[in-house]
């Protein structure tokens, strides 16, 4: 196997995509999970279902709708085009958008973490004079380490392995939308099995290692409130 003929572009791009997606997921996933954990609203089950949809839908459904929505005639791509001059399809930003939707179900389970912590710690913190934000960052966040670790790693790993959606909205542009999974697909297609093997085995090993890491760290962390 020839390591020199390997193009590192898709690997680097995939890592960037997974990192950016994971950060956005934590930023938007936290308030969603927090709201779901604390609300008595009637639309709660609806929101829960929407968030979990990418788990059960085939990526082709998401890919098809995203292709239409992110394009210049779509209701997301259209306004973006008038603002920036370019629609979201075939762009890195478009992939980040798609991946965020796609991996959201792996981060929102933070909800059960927040539920198990309950309201007591935050109420205690408030009674001691902490602001809501302060209470969240200095009480809830440390108590949720385990949940955050799992959410972060799973969100990241799931984005690494994304294929169907990217295939449909990416357009296979080197350096912008050609991620590892697409590269592997192309290599298999043209019978360059050696390169396909290197990339596939690499991804397999990498995914295995981060999962082992998260499970072993999780074992050492407290389950929740002691």
């Amino acid at each position, binding site marked *: 196997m020839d390591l020199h003929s390997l193009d590192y572009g898709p690997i680097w791009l995939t890592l960037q995509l997974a990192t950016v997606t994971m950060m956005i997921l934590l930023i938007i996933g936290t308030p969603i999970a927090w709201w779901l954990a604390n609300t008595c609203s009637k639309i709660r089950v609806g929101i829960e279902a929407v968030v979990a949809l990418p788990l059960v839908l085939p990526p082709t459904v998401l890919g098809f709708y995203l*292709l*239409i929505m*992110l*394009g*210049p*005639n779509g209701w997301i*791509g259209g306004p973006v085009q008038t603002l920036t001059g*370019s*629609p979201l*399809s*075939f762009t890195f930003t478009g992939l980040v958008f798609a991946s965020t939707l796609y991996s959201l179900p792996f981060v929102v389970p933070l909800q059960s973490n927040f539920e198990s912590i309950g309201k007591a710690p935050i109420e205690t913190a408030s009674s001691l004079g902490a602001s809501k934000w302060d209470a969240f960052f200095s009480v809830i966040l440390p108590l949720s380490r385990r949940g955050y670790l799992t959410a972060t790693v799973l969100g990241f790993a799931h984005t690494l392995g994304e294929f169907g959606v990217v*295939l*449909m909205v990416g*357009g*296979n*542009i080197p350096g912008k939308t050609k991620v590892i999974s697409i590269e592997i*697909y*192309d290599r*298999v*297609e*043209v*019978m360059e099995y050696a390169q396909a093997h290197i990339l596939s085995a690499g991804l397999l090993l990498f995914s295995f290692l981060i999962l082992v890491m998260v499970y072993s760290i999780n074992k050492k962390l407290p389950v929740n409130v002691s």
Partner: protein
Amino acid sequence: MTIKKSKWCDLMYGLISVFFLIQAPIALAEQIRVAVASNFIFPIKELSKEFENTTGNKVLVISGSTGKLYAQIHQGAPFEVFLAADSNRPELLEKEGIGVPGSRFTYAVGRLVMWSADPKFATKFGLHVLGQKNFRYLAIANPKTAPYGKATEQVLRKTGYWKKIQSRLVRGENISQTLQFVVTGNAQIGFISLSQLSSSRELLGGTSWLVPLSLHEPIQQQAILLKRANSSQVAREFLKFLKSKKGQKIIKNYGYYVEQF
């Protein structure tokens, strides 16, 4: 208890006989599985319908990219006939002893068209529209995996647009996805097959330009009988039908160039 059991047996026996009764007429006709490159999906539907009507045999169509189907055949996929979008893959199968020697022939020659769904991109005036700045993306089939993509690359290289257009290229996994990019408005111009355009002309609209055959190597779409179907009379008959005047006429109607007629 015993009564119950015998009732069960009766029921099962009945169901099994019904099952075989339904199966009986179908069992007389033979079924062949034909692996088809995705650009040929429309003509194959009409061809297999015609073949089914005249012979009573069934044709099951499996479509995909030529590369993927080739890999599947290599791994022992249960297909009798392979209709590729190029000549390389059937040649390889013949050499590797997976295809039946001497059964290979060109069933269609593909034509490329440059097409835009929106007439304002004026693709009918030819390749120089690619020099304009009024469009964001040009969709082509991936030259590495799709024969139509390879031909497109040859056209763009020969005419000097290849380097200039790089930043605006998006690549479809196959010719169907390339069309999809333009239909959904994500790409403004695309190089697709004439067969796609002619099978849904009214639906697609827009303007197009037929790429002259002199600008790229011919897209020879070849068929081959697979070894596992060596003894299948129906599979051979189907290939004969593709070659026949009737078959070639249908293929021509879908926008392919055919050699014999």
